[in-house]
């Protein structure tokens, strides 16, 4: 089957600094993958390249076999690491927006999730708290039936109940033909929902393996291994 995300010798330079340096990786359909690395290791750069928000300096990146562009963007559901919803829009307006642009957007599902989390559809983003904004963004992203979900730091700075809800939603949303890439540095929280992990360090992939293989091979959790590998 076709891969959901593939990078070959992918390099991204900002001026003279290399944010990514010759990254090779493959994400097969039906996998939940953790993109792990300390801050500044290139996680966000990689995700932005997959979204077409950045252009590679050299090498290749493909989403479901497509170079990032109009067609690939229809297949990717992206949660950025920052609030990006227009402040003047309401929950309802945002659902209109998503329904208009994304054919795979399930409005009923989004409305249901909003109600479940106690969010009012008529409320404007400007009137929402930081946590509410994050929830709305997550709901919109997870209410799509995409082929690749790119979640950049989805659990950074959320309360434990919301974190559990996010992980639950990822499991509930699981589909055999879609994959999920979660970038985070909070590994212990997500470890149980991951199939595979990719360790990024200074823009290079230092490991790509399955969680259970790591546990079997090293006799320790991915979190413990990560702490050892990235010890300051």
């Amino acid at each position, binding site marked *: 089957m076709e891969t959901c995300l593939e990078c070959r010798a992918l390099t991204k330079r900002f001026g003279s600094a290399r944010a990514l340096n010759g990254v090779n990786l493959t994400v097969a359909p039906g996998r939940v993958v953790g993109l792990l690395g300390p801050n500044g290791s290139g996680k966000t750069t990689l995700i*932005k390249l997959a979204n077409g*928000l950045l*252009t590679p300096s050299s090498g290749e990146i493909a989403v479901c076999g497509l170079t990032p*562009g109009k*067609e690939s963007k*229809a297949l*990717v559901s992206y949660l*950025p690491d920052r609030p990006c919803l227009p402040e003047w829009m309401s929950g309802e307006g945002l659902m209109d*927006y998503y329904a208009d*642009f994304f054919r795979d957007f399930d409005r009923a599902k989004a409305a249901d999730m909003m109600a479940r989390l106690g969010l009012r559809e008529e409320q404007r983003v400007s009137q929402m708290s930081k946590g509410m904004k994050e929830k709305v963004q997550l709901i919109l992203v997870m209410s799509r039936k995409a082929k690749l979900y790119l979640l950049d730091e989805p659990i950074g700075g959320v309360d434990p109940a919301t974190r559990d809800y996010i992980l639950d939603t990822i499991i509930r949303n699981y589909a055999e033909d879609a994959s999920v890439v979660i970038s985070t540095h909070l590994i212990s929280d997500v470890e149980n929902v991951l199939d595979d992990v990719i360790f990024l360090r200074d823009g290079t992939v230092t490991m790509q393996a399955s969680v259970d293989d790591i546990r079997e091979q090293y006799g320790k959790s991915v979190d413990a291994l990560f702490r050892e590998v990235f010890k300051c």
Partner: protein
Amino acid sequence: MLGKLMKHEFRATGRIMLPLLAAELILAVLAGFSVRGLERMEDMSFLHALYVLTLIVFGLGMFAIAVVVFVLMIQRFYRSLLRDEGYLSMTLPVTVDAQIWAKLLTSFVWFLAVGALFFLSMFVVMSIGSYITLPDLEEFREFWRSMEAELRELGVGSMALYLFEMLAAVFLGVCVTCLRCYASMAIGCSAADHKLILSFVAYFLIGIALGMTSNAAVFAVLPRLETSSFFEHVSPARFMHTVMLGNLVIGAGLSALFYLVTRYFLKNKLNLA
């Protein structure tokens, strides 16, 4: 997808522009009554001051709307494509071309609306203030015919063609204005920091480049014009149309240039903070 982008663009801008346009129209009506009131009044009363104030507010309102429509054109492009909202809008399954056109066409409609508002509110003020009566259609036709006749006598061609050329010039003028701002912002925001300052720098550098180019063109053409027999043989109509057409060609060329620059930077040099 262009239609959907424009629909949401109008939603985003309409919530600001429509109330402003409506308010200014109401102000125009009030200003009309003020004019009428002032004509009948000689002393400096409280009412007199109120009438004057209304007229001032109406005038300032017109100016403010002209500023707002310009600022909104810049702000919509900058905020929705090049800042945090860009994480949403630039990951929509649409082409960069559709994004630029949606912004351009929407701004264009608002520029037109403000232009129309200007004439409409002037008309409202004057008709209520009883300077003029509702124009007679027959009178207007008469005016048009006389103008045409006069132009024909001068040998400068048809009125309709001038009107068309003028409208095209306005259209391209708006395009050049918007696209020059878009290109500047797209260039400035491709940097990691100081995006806004660099956008201004880009804008002024474009201005300098344009100035130098046009100076060079004038110096290249002028000496030849002096020695050529162009003016002796050409009819006034031909001359006027040549000038107008030249203006349009330059406008179209600049629009295309700025469009391509904007497109290139949004597509290849996007660098959201």
